[in-house]
């Protein structure tokens, strides 16, 4: 029995220059990972791995290659691996990014690619940090709908314009890339941080929510929005492209508008 199958009708004719049999170009990289294991040593250290990677690979794939094929003790968080769960924020070549959204080919592969845990939070092991302080700030701004009116019998309706008002800040995935890129947070862990303010913004400017004043009062704290120095590190770090600094500025204005 011959197993010859007909070519699918949708096959696209590729010019000769594009990959032989659809093969993806490979290249060599040096992955320089910050390793820390408190059960072995109190000191963190760099560890280099020479890897052959493909043009479609991301930093996360390189980490997987190390963990699955070279050193299973390498620890990092990742869940969905597609930029939605917000588990794998790390400092790649000195900038906070999601490992699953950073293609290796977009980085300078001629030099070692450095991968470190995000700054400002206590490192537990390798690339894993203690996120508890981050989530504590998030909880403190009450990131849930508070409505004092009667429970509607159907959904709470909202105009397109009202929804648009806070659309940007609904995109947050709580990866902590913004908060851990903030130089104020690096030296003062008590600062609420950009992520908590973004998530407060999402409800403060929601026309269906009635607790905006409470959230503004919480963020009027000395560790609240006034600690922001508008360095724009957070806006630059956000993997979802949220204009974080602008959201913080809007919360500042809302507090001023309410007090004066």
């Amino acid at each position, binding site marked *: 029995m011959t197993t010859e199958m007909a070519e699918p009708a949708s096959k696209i004719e590729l010019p000769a220059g594009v990959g032989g049999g659809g093969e993806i170009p490979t290249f060599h990289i040096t992955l320089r990972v910050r390793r820390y294991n408190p*059960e072995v040593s109190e000191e963190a250290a760099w560890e280099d791995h020479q890897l052959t990677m493909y043009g479609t690979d991301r930093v996360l794939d390189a980490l997987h290659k190390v963990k699955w094929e070279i050193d299973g003790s390498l620890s990092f968080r990742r869940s969905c691996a597609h930029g939605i769960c917000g588990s794998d924020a790390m400092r790649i070549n000195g900038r906070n990014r999601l490992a699953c959204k950073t293609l290796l080919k977009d980085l300078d592969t001629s030099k070692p690619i450095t991968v470190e845990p995000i700054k400002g939070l206590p490192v537990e092991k390798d690339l894993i940090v203690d996120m*508890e302080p981050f989530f504590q700030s998030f909880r403190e701004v009450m990131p849930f709908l508070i409505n004092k009116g009667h429970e509607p019998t159907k959904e709470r309706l909202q105009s397109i314009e009202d929804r648009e008002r806070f659309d940007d800040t609904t995109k947050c995935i709580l990866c902590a890339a913004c908060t851990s890129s903030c130089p104020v947070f690096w*030296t003062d862990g008590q600062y609420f941080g950009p992520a908590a303010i973004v998530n407060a913004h999402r409800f403060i400017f929601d026309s269906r929510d009635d607790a905006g004043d409470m959230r503004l009062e919480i963020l009027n704290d000395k560790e609240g929005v006034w600690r922001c120095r508008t360095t724009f590190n957070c806006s630059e770090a956000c993997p979802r492209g949220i204009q974080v600094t602008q959201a913080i500025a809007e919360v500042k204005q809302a507090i001023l508008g309410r007090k004066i």
Partner: protein
Amino acid sequence: MTAIQSPRSGKIAPQYKRSGGSKGNFEMLAWLFMRLSGVVLVVLIFGHLFVNLLVGEGIHAIDFGFVAGKWADPFWQFWDLAMLWLAMLHGTNGVRTIINDYAEKDATRFWLKVVLYAASAVIVILGTLVIFTFNPCPVVDGVQLPGGFCPAP
């Protein structure tokens, strides 16, 4: 060897715990003052530079007599007073912010602020005194100090 505690969830290292405390609007007012005083200072400082360096003979006219003449006029007294106070408070608040941002220990932060506030207070008080008690033709022990523009005793 360090044993990792378990479970860790729910525990927050002390440096992340907000100390609470001040519930007032001080930080908001400081933030607002910074912006407003900045705008006013731009006007005051460029007005000051324009009058001193460009009007009339410009920079060549500046001497002891020029300053004495300006401070004989209440308008310039208050202009300079506003400039002194706003610049000093603006600068002090800026340095206070920097100390808050960069000092890592509470004791360091406290003492740096003590030094800062003391230095600012000395300069503000001294400057205010000079502006209002300035006498271009002082007579010391019955002797007129030199100054061509002073009326003969």
